[in-house]
């Protein structure tokens, strides 16, 4: 008989909670190649080191839903005590996350949701809100007189790209003189940001600002403008604000970007929750935590960098 997998009851529950025990935490990452996600891994690992008994294993799905399903299955074979997952996409990972959850393994979902409620907790930012915050910054602070904006978007089809585009439009709605003159994708990548900007500098006469869906693309666009001698005439903003040397905060501090908006990884928060669940035996953890964003400009860059524990 053919039957659907999963839902076969949670007998294989995680080890009993309590202090002084060893816990294996599986961290299933969607794609290590993105700096944002690498930092998320680092945040998880660093935070876990501070908790005695925690051991974290990170797997990399390299942007492949199927691979991520297999990664989680492998975690289950090994017998992890808790799963942290930053899903590549929601729907495809829902079933396997449910499978883990139904086995009694606590699951913390980071950054992108899965469907339904078969997980222990979700921690993530709100991309529409971030896009909106950026839009409002454009409308009120960056381009109060209006101007021509070029949008460099993330990977087509990814939710953050869609939501950041949508939020931004909501944010600039209050200032009709702001015009998005072109949108091109650079697939989250710095080098693509550069080459896309190269072409746009030719095609678009008077660009006032570049709204990039993340910092690497903003930096790439900046480099292109610099090569054309236009870096001071155009303003650049990004999103992510990673507290690492190659991140957006430093770029703001050093004057390349005008602003960036924090997209928190939730890594530390996830380990905090894990500790509550595994060590403190807490039954009642918040089902959903939305991480706020911080607007970073030259004024607060250095300070935020330190606050977030950025390495000098």
């Amino acid at each position, binding site marked *: *008989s*053919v*039957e*659907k*997998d999963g839902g*076969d009851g949670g007998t294989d529950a995680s080890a009993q909670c309590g202090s002084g025990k060893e816990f294996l935490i599986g961290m299933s*990452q969607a794609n*290590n190649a993105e700096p944002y996600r690498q930092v998320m891994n680092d945040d998880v690992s660093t935070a876990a080191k501070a908790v005695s008994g925690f051991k974290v*294993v*990170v*797997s*990399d799905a*390299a*942007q*492949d*839903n*199927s691979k991520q*399903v*297999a*990664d989680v*299955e*492998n*975690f289950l*074979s*090994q*017998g992890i005590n808790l799963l942290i997952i930053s899903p590549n*996409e*929601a*729907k*495809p990972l*829902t*079933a396997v996350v449910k499978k883990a959850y139904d086995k009694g393994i606590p699951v913390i979902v980071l950054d992108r949701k899965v*469907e339904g409620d078969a997980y222990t907790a979700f921690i993530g930012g709100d991309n529409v809100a971030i896009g909106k915050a950026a839009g409002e910054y454009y409308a009120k602070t960056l381009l109060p007189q209006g101007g021509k904006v070029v949008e460099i978007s993330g*990977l*087509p*089809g990814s*939710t953050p790209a*869609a939501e950041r585009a949508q939020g931004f439009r909501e944010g600039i709605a209050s200032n009709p003189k702001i015009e998005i003159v072109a949108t091109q994708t650079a697939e989250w990548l710095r080098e693509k940001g550069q080459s896309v900007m190269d072409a746009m500098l030719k095609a678009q006469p008077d660009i006032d600002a570049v709204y990039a869906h993340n910092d690497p693309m903003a930096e790439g666009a900046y480099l292109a403008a610099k090569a054309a001698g236009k870096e001071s005439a155009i303003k650049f903003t990004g999103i992510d604000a990673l507290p690492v040397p190659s991140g957006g905060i430093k770029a703001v501090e050093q004057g390349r970007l005008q602003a960036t908006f924090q997209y928190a990884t939730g890594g530390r928060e996830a380990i905090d929750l894990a500790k509550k669940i595994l060590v403190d035996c807490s039954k009642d953890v918040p089902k959903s935590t939305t991480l706020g964003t911080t607007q970073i400009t030259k004024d607060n860059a250095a300070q935020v960098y330190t606050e977030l524990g950025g390495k000098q």
Partner: protein
Amino acid sequence: MNSPNPTTVAASPPETPPRRGAIRLPKDRHAIVDNFFRFQSLFGLVAVFVIAIAVSPSRNGENVFLSSGNLANIVRAVSEIGIIAVGMTFVILIGGIDLSVGAVLGLAAVGSATLMVDSGLGIVPTVLIVLFIGTAFGATQGAIVARLGIQSFIVTLAGLQAARGIARMWSGGLGIPIAYGDGPQEAPEAFSLLSGSINGVLPVPALIFLAIGVGALLVLRSTAFARHVYAIGGNEKAARLSGVPVRRVRVTVFAISGLLAALAGIIHAGQLNQGSPNDGAGYELDAIAAVVIGGTSLAGGSGSMGGTIAGALLLGILNNILALNNIDANVQLVVKGLVIVAAAALQRLRPRIA
């Protein structure tokens, strides 16, 4: 050297009844060695399998790697790559390559989801349409290769881009989730069987992969078509002179590859309950790797389907055992590279015929 007397070959008069014994392969050392090496395409797989058992962690005294659930997962995880690799084997045997398979998988996944969810079609029409799209896509590429004489690498690289672009446009760029039920915007429940298992042991995709694999193995063993495939890859001119319909075979081969990539896409959608235009990115390299590790030559003309199946399983076991041992993802990359070379070296132990 107790080979049959070579002089008799030339000198025996026609009346002499053929020395039957001499025609058979001599059952001597060479024959044994030969027979042993017939299974060479399995050497790497066996080696990796044995190592995997040895280094597997154990849980509650049980070897985790060997647990039936884990083995099932392995076959399930390689099933899509495996199905694609079966089609790729035909393409590589004629000396071609098909880089479009991953993108066709994505297109098929999007197609499956859209047709069922948005257009409200049933499973059978959906599957037929999607398989047709994949086959037509492959056949078109094959026709371009065969008619215009452009290298298949270029044609299918372009095909990759085109299929990806079409899939993105069709889906609006976003993954199309598949919900099951009888309502509008819902897919027939039966489709979700693709993510199920037979008796809770053998995952359906794994079953499909093995069925396709065995089927292809038989095709390659016993059809005239297969001989034409080998002939084109081995010596195209000889094939043409012998009246092999070279162009038609070429088109057929690419059509098969497209068909199987579309099938993998349907399975992909069924397993993941979604069709996304980015599905299958990079699968082409994995599939080619499976074929080549299986001992098929990229130059065409030599190789086997059994090798391909073994190659796909080898890659799956490798991924699995590295993960089971909690190897860091980056270190995994390096180890995987080394093991792949070692496995490929095992497949080559036998001296080549000069």
